[in-house]
């Protein structure tokens, strides 16, 4: 009886041990599976946090660059003591960014932006330098080269760019056999195949691509000038010739030069703001002479301008001394038509104006406008010296290289 009892109890103990072992094995397998699932979740969470941090860093950098360019437009004189910055600026996606801007207009600006999300952190950088909006031809809308034009640069082999903010089909149209010695940049998201229309034998030496974002063409700001009203009378010995010097800078109601009338810029930097029409009729002349004072004319247009066929716009010695005739079209200037005889040397910055160039000779300078139609059949030589701009110039903007850790 005692032996039988012992046997029974041994059998019961074995089953219990087996059951416990089974439970332990199943528990271990369960725990390993939970651990693996956890690993996958952690890795996925890390990937999401990393992407959020990266996007936040990009957002911070974009905001910093935008604020720097806004500051550039808003301030007539650059104030380096108020550079933008942000600390832990929250975003809606459980992420935040911090950015700082260091440097000045002489050495350039270093923008550092760090994005954070949970345990992830990403840092991106850009070095901003002062660039010119006179990079060749720049428009908000379209460029039509309607006649055979040879593009060139001073000096030869300089950078030349045609750039539009538009993504519309044929926003850049080039006449057959047109040679472009540089890049053509179109609006963000645009298709270069449809936006750029090239006829047979046209050659684009550089690259064609879509910009990351539109280039902002802010309206030019007229510097403070005294009101003058009407132009002074002609010279005593030559009543048809009006001579302007630096001290004649001011605000004028209009400039209308009739047949045989001449306007000569003879001394220093002359700045004119014309609130009314500027019209050069056939047989009239606008001359910027060459002398030791390097005379120049900054003409601010508050209204439209037209140079008729047979009129002359002459900048003496412009190839050696650079483009000294600069036309700024304000918001109320919608049309500039230049059909003058002979060569034209001018740098035009009129972001609200439709510009038509139909002079009978060669064209020198650079053009930035709402749209540009070129009907002259000569050469257009871009003066790369217009790339040298100061931070307080109307045509300066900040752009730069991007990199990350």
């Amino acid at each position, binding site marked *: 009886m005692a032996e039988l009892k012992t046997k029974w109890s041994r059998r019961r103990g074995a089953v219990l041990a087996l059951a416990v072992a089974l439970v332990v094995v199943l528990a271990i397998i369960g725990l390993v599976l939970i651990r693996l699932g956890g690993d996958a979740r952690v890795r996925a969470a890390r990937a999401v946090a990393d992407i959020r941090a990266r996007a936040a860093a990009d957002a911070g950098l974009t905001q910093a660059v935008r604020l720097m360019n806004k500051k550039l437009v808003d301030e007539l004189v650059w104030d380096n003591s108020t550079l933008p910055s942000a600390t832990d600026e929250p975003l809606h996606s459980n992420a935040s960014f911090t950015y700082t801007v260091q440097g000045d207009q002489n050495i350039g600006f270093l923008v550092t932006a760090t994005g954070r999300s949970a345990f992830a952190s990403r840092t991106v950088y850009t070095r901003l330098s002062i660039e010119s909006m006179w990079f060749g031809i720049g428009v908000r809308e379209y460029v039509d080269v309607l006649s055979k034009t040879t593009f060139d640069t001073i000096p030869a082999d300089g950078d030349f760019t045609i750039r539009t903010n538009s993504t519309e089909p044929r926003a850049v149209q080039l006449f057959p056999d047109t040679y472009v010695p540089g890049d053509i940049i179109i609006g963000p998201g645009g298709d270069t195949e449809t936006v750029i229309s090239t006829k047979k034998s046209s050659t684009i030496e550089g690259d064609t691509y879509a910009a990351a974002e539109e280039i902002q063409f802010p309206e030019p700001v007229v510097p403070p000038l005294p009101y003058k009203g009407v132009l002074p009378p002609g010279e005593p010995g030559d009543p048809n010739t009006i001579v302007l010097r630096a001290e004649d800078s001011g605000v004028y109601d209009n400039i209308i030069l009739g047949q045989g009338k001449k306007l000569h810029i003879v001394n220093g930097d002359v700045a004119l703001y014309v609130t009314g029409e500027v019209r050069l009729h056939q047989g009239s002349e606008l001359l910027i002479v060459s002398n030791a004072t390097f005379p120049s004319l900054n003409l601010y247009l508050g209204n439209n301008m037209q140079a008729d066929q047979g009129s002359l716009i002459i900048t003496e010695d412009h190839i050696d001394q650079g483009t000294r005739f600069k036309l700024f079209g304000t918001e109320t200037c919608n049309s500039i038509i230049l059909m003058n005889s002979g060569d034209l040397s001018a740098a035009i910055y009129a972001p609200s104006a439709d510009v038509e160039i139909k002079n009978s000779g060669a064209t020198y300078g650079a053009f930035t406008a709402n749209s540009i139609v070129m009907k002259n059949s000569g050469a257009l030589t871009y003066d790369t010296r217009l790339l040298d701009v100061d931070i307080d110039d109307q045509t300066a903007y900040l752009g*730069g*290289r991007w990199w990350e850790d």
Partner: protein
Amino acid sequence: MNGKMKKIAGFTIIELMITATTLFIILLGIGVALVDSQRGYHRMYDRVHGAVATDSYAAKAVFDKVIRRSSRKRYVLGTGNLAVFYYSAPSSPSLDRYANFRTEAGNLYVDYGLVDSDGTPLNASNTVLVARNVLAASFSVDGACVKMVLKLDDGKEKVTVACSALRHND
């Protein structure tokens, strides 16, 4: 003695068969569950730490790093390959480096090399193996955005990886 024997032989053959059958079914269930658990563990391990998973993470990381620093100016898109161009340093005056993604014998490589002053890519100076087990790779470019679709297969797992990045430089 007879009384004792009767008490010990208390199970009928039917009872024993029912018990044996029940135990067999329970053990079979446990065995199936154990085998299934092990198979699930291996499948999950492969998905999380397997060769295909590791390849896909590496490919995404390299693609992201290279494309983000590249220029919007230039790219060369071929069948199963993509070359992008970038500046070696923030102060570089021109695009002086290139990176070419290509597939060969089931591997994804990136060739790095110099660009001469005419903009012509020179022979690769460095080639990096990014991912193995590549069944197919396709690339597309839409404005500043570059997309890569990789199909990976190591015989155990098949994964399709799609990643995209923006080119940040002019």
